[in-house]
């Protein structure tokens, strides 16, 4: 049995567009975000993401788990960057110290300390904005893309029939296998299996994962015979495929695609002339005594 994502028809900005147009916009948006570390260019992108989220019509109740997960993930990475300065080293050569925080305790004679510098703070902020924009736009997609349109959407984006259908099946299988994994985990737990307490060395631990991975995989392959039979009975892949639903670009979809292409071209041009690097405001440097 297939389990689906939590799509339902909503009156929202994102669902008022053709799904192909929205995916093109999404990929252009993601490519543009990835080109910049400069907060001045990342903030407008964040604004686009926020408008999309707030007009998406997805309630907090439906998407609570996804947002908590993304929120935890984004904060964790920003904090990690801030505490260690890791990841930023490629972006700035010199750091201007604001203050040094010292822990009020020592661990075996070592006092944990954090150097708060202008560059590190700016880098952490930029990363927070960047990761949040991309992650939040990504999680909106399963909520707002009609599962009956997956195949024709990928076909419409230029993929061959078979690959478009494989993409459609992939998106449909993901929630199903997540459910199967949970069922298998519960069944194995009822037999005394404990994922949280894997003992032994690395080799023993890997071997102990087999009771989870093998049943889920083999069941998926064995159960696929029904799908293969159903597809063969309908002569899948014999001739050019027709799709039950048709998609037509309207004016607003064309406008969105043009805007998306302009966004990515402008971002690429700006990044080529050197506006993509980390931006540190001059007043902050002056304030830090730089």
């Amino acid at each position: 049995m297939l389990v689906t994502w939590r799509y339902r028809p909503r009156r929202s900005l994102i669902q008022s567009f053709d799904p192909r147009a929205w995916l093109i916009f999404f990929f252009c948006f993601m490519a543009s975000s990835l080109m910049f570390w400069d907060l001045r260019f990342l903030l407008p992108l964040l604004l686009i993401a926020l408008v999309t989220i707030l007009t998406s019509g997805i309630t907090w109740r439906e998407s609570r788990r996804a947002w908590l997960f993304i929120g935890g993930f984004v904060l964790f990475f920003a904090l990690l960057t801030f505490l260690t300065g890791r990841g930023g080293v490629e972006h700035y050569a010199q750091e201007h110290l604001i203050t040094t925080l010292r822990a009020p305790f020592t661990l075996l004679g070592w006092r944990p300390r954090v150097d708060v510098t202008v560059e590190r703070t700016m880098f952490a902020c930029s990363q927070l904005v960047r990761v949040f924009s991309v992650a939040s736009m990504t999680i909106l997609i399963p909520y707002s893309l009609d599962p009956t349109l997956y195949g024709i959407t990928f076909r419409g984006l230029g993929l061959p029939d078979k690959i478009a259908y494989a993409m459609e099946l992939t998106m449909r299988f993901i929630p199903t296998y997540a459910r199967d994994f949970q069922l298998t985990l519960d069944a194995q737990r009822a037999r005394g299996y404990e994922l949280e307490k894997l003992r032994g060395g690395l080799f023993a631990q890997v071997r102990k994962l087999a009771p989870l991975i093998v049943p889920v995989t083999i069941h998926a392959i064995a159960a696929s015979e029904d799908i293969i039979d159903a597809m063969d009975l309908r002569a899948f892949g014999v001739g050019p495929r027709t799709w039950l639903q048709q998609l037509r670009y309207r004016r607003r979809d064309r406008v969105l695609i043009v805007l998306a292409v302009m966004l990515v071209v402008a971002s690429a041009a700006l990044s080529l002339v050197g506006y993509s690097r980390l931006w540190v405001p001059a007043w902050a440097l002056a304030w830090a005594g730089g």
Partner: protein
Amino acid sequence: MDRRLISVVGALVAVLVFFLLIVWIGGAINDSLKLDETALLRFLFVIIGLLIVFGVYWFTRSSGVWEVGTRQVVYMAIGAALYAVFSYLFNGTVFAVPSVSQVALRPAIAIPMFFGYAFGPAVGFFTGAVGNMFGDALTGFGLSPQWSVGNGLVGMIAGMAQLFPNKKKGINVVLIVSAVLAAIGVLFYALNTGQANMMFFDPDQGIFGDATITWFAGLSVLIGFVLVLIVRFAFGQNIDVASAVTWSMLGNLLGIGFAAISDIWINGFPLAVAIVGEFLPAAGPNLIFAAILVPILVAAYAAVQRQTGR
């Protein structure tokens, strides 16, 4: 070659040439006109990776291994979905993934290897590339398309086993090539033992990819290679298991190698950092997981095949 393929390859080559022109000619005219090191270059390496795939396809197209029928379409989808789900579950954010000596338990890589070996290179490539893409999207990692292509190569190369009608001969060639690659990796480790392991994160201990690589992680490629060798000879009778683990090993070394080496340009890593900090701690543990899980999957699948008679 049919016309669609010509147009796809033509477009890829055109984009590649365009990028190279910007880098070389543009850079010579105007100093500030350089490719941004993090974003645009990723796409360049995706194109290089796809051209490698097309090249391999072109030279082996006369054999039937690239055929995509109903069965392959469904297996592609199953493989990609399973890979996405497992990499999401075991990336350390859902379960607390245990780690032994800087090697975290990330068993998902066995999926593209097994699907590639069992169902051919096309299924393997789709499983690795699309599965990695969806897995990253589920986690919210954004996009590292060069790693998606690298994972696709892992599955594709595992599927190249079907090109050799004489499995024993294929295994021997693969073992020799892999031994050379593993030896190069170990040599790099021996020359750079102080390098940080950039794939290892443990927030509880305050380690964020900056701890010095342990000897276990540094030598994990060698350990994995020995493990594969043991499986190959212990299952000498079952040529399927032996062939699956050895080809998976080669796929892993070349696919992850492609992604790590592309980071030399993308993230500006020196060669030693890319190999010792990224390639060894990613590819070595993968080999260990493959050597243990791929044989179990191959044996279980053989039992299903016997039962259903397919």
